[in-house]
């Protein structure tokens, strides 16, 4: 066997161009384009720089969380406490504000809270080996509960103007800071997931964490980092949302977690772990934003929009499965 260089294994057989055309992402692009076109016909107000700019505020904060959540879900875990982290981070920022914290300190507190909460989740899941779904249902109540204890029926307000800029400011013309931050983060997460060793290990863990561990991957450490990252992104979202609302109440960002997860799943990330891409998540965020804003322009109530997003979620997931079942049945 020493000289068996007889067979040469090619890198790949399929044509990368062809497979990328048939990918999930292109399906999403098509969906996004269709919705965009429908929107521009349905409402005369849609194709307007200001409208489109306002549109982005509907999803940037959730989408920022979705980026980190995507990695976490790819690794086979989940974090339902993200919205509660926002509440706690926002509350602590408001608390610090009462003691005269300036803008940099506020941001540091917001992001710091995110890291601490993420690390707490990460410790419970990886250190004590508990299922992440239950742990984060628990910490979701705990984190938001602490906000309620601190804030009760009060609210914090009076954030400085320089702080408000994070949620209301424009970098250039109608391009908001939130949007720019989201795009920058999307690129960073793309690189992290698709271009680094770390990202590769995340996929390996999500596919089979036992085999990954048997392959010398430090599974617990990687998952811990992912929880921290999700915490950080929630902290950042807390800064943006607090700045945008200009006030803090303990009920801030209620329901964000399910919307972020919907974006992730719609973006083609397998809820069972191991598969998914950042591009998909970004597209899904865009689609959710387009749908809600487009229907909003038609004055369709938000609750009715959820029928669309919910159906979209199920249909988009079911279609490939139905297609596969149909194809498998045919030759038999």
């Amino acid at each position, binding site marked *: *066997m020493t000289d068996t260089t007889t067979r040469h294994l090619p*890198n790949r*057989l399929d044509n990368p161009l062809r497979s990328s055309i048939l990918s999930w992402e292109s399906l999403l692009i098509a969906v996004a384009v269709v919705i965009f076109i429908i929107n521009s016909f349905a409402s005369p107000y849609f194709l307007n720089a200001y409208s489109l700019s306002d549109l982005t505020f509907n999803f940037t904060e959730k989408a920022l969380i979705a980026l980190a959540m995507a990695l976490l879900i790819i690794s086979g875990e989940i974090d339902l406490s993200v919205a509660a982290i926002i509440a706690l981070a926002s509350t602590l920022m408001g608390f610090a504000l009462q003691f005269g914290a300036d803008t940099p300190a506020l941001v540091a507190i917001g992001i710091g809270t995110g890291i601490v909460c993420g690390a707490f989740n990460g410790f419970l899941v990886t250190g004590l080996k508990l299922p992440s779904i239950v742990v984060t249902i628990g910490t979701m109540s705990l984190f938001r509960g602490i906000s309620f204890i601190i804030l009760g029926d009060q609210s914090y307000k009076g954030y400085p103007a320089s702080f408000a800029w994070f949620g209301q400011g424009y970098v250039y013309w109608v391009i908001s800071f939130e949007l720019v931050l989201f795009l920058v983060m999307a690129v960073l997460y793309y690189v992290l997931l698709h271009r680094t060793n770390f990202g590769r*290990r995340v996929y*390996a863990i999500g596919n089979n964490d036992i*085999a990954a561990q048997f392959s010398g991957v430090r599974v617990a450490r990687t998952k811990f980092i992912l929880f921290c990252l999700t915490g950080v992104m929630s902290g950042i979202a807390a800064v943006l949302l607090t700045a945008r609302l200009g006030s803090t109440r303990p009920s801030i960002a209620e329901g964000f977690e399910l919307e972020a997860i919907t974006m992730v799943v719609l973006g083609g990330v397998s809820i069972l772990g191991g598969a998914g891409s950042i591009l998909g998540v970004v597209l899904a965020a865009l689609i959710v934003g387009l749908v809600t804003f487009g229907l909003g322009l038609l004055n369709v109530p938000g609750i009715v929009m959820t029928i669309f997003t919910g159906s979209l979620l199920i249909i988009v997931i079911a279609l490939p499965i139905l297609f596969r079942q149909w194809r498998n049945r045919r030759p038999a």
Partner: protein
Amino acid sequence: MTPPVLTLSGITKTFPGVRALHNVALELFAGQVTALIGENGAGKSTLVKVMTGIYQPDAGEITVAGKPVTLPTAHAAFEAGVTAIHQETVLFDELTVAENIYLGHAPRNRFGMIDWRKMRSEAKETLDSMAAGIDPDIKLKELGIAKKHLVAVARALSIDAQIVIMDEPTAALSQKEIEELYVLIELLKADGKAILFISHKFDEIYRIADRFTVFRDGEQVGTGFIKDTTQSQIVQMMVGRSVDHIFPARNAVIGETVFEAKGLSHPTEFDDISFSVRKGEILGFYGLVGAGRSEVMQAVFGMTTPSSGSMTLNGQSIAPKSAADAVEAGIVYVPEERGKQGVITGQPIFQNVSLPSLKKTSSNGFLRAAQEFDLARTYTERLDLRASSLSQNVSTLSGGNQQKVVIAKWLATNPKLIILDEPTKGIDIGSKAAVHGFMGELVEQGLSVIMVTSELPEVLGMADRIVVMREGRIIATLDNKGLKPETLVRLAAGIAEEEAA
């Protein structure tokens, strides 16, 4: 003579990439034990699953008592009078023993509700009749592996079936329990049941079987009466060639000690394990399934932490806390459960191979695809991996080729010690030879190899020294020179001891 109770004909079953069964036939007779014999992966268990409604055959016919039947579900098989003790324990840890025995056919009261009292008393009766000494009310997870197997046997017996299949029922049992099982089988025979008995142990087969059928590579290659056939004739059918040629000649130079373990212990799994491996040596670990060898190896590999004991590698003391530590130190492990622990089936070959070596193929933590492909190609080609491209998904490879991917992955890390846990389990004969050949090559290059195996020929054919384990302890460490197979079997099963006692 009486017609067969069950007839299989023309049964074919293919899995993606593997033809597990091809046009096989089988007949079972009332009051007789038919032994099904064949190497690992010959298709025996697959046939059992076809007969019990778990797999649907691609082609072929099943007749029970002269009537053709289809078995779309496990329940249908049970209704047709077929029951089986499966090779892997298919039981429920969190349920009680009684329920494990009666799940799916529990006795009901007149309201159609499960009658627990009756179930418990019947379970107790069955277990007592087997002299199993198991309390039907405790949860299954409280039992050891051997007792679990007895529960599986009890489950099969609780179904009043005409056809009883036993897929390696004795693999995890002690000699005493095996003897009790024989008694049971005699009772069943006397009851007029048709029994299919699968085993790799010839002594058992000759002791209890009336007829035999031999499978090789998914085909039926012979059938007949045990009393008319000699052991070597059967082996000839099983292997299709002379057994001696399988193992490569060893011409590695054995050097100084590379790895040494002293007094490794674990609260429940192993105790006082000491052994050493030298450069260029293959150290065999032999024992019955469940002897605790995998657990020892996983402790060496950092997956579990021993409660006491020490390890040294190249004279330096090591204490790996994780597999990553062990790999960094130069110890790698090819696990026993390939699909679960070895390969990441959802990912392409090259990513599987490069996973532990990502540091080498990347720059500053960023992936470099070209380097990854080069690395993967170098090692998979050395192992003669059969695949269409390096981006092929590992799940589409055959078992043997998956094993090669695992080995390639580890070779790429330039290890000092490689541990192979059941390296040829479930691998076809051709690949088996390749893996054996490759092990020879590894030691020639100066690596040290630990090979865990439950197969006698393999350990006798490959190892330089053999460590025998039983019930979590090392029983003996032997030089593999003129060793008789019986010696190993006795040591592993503890028979010598029992006779002395």
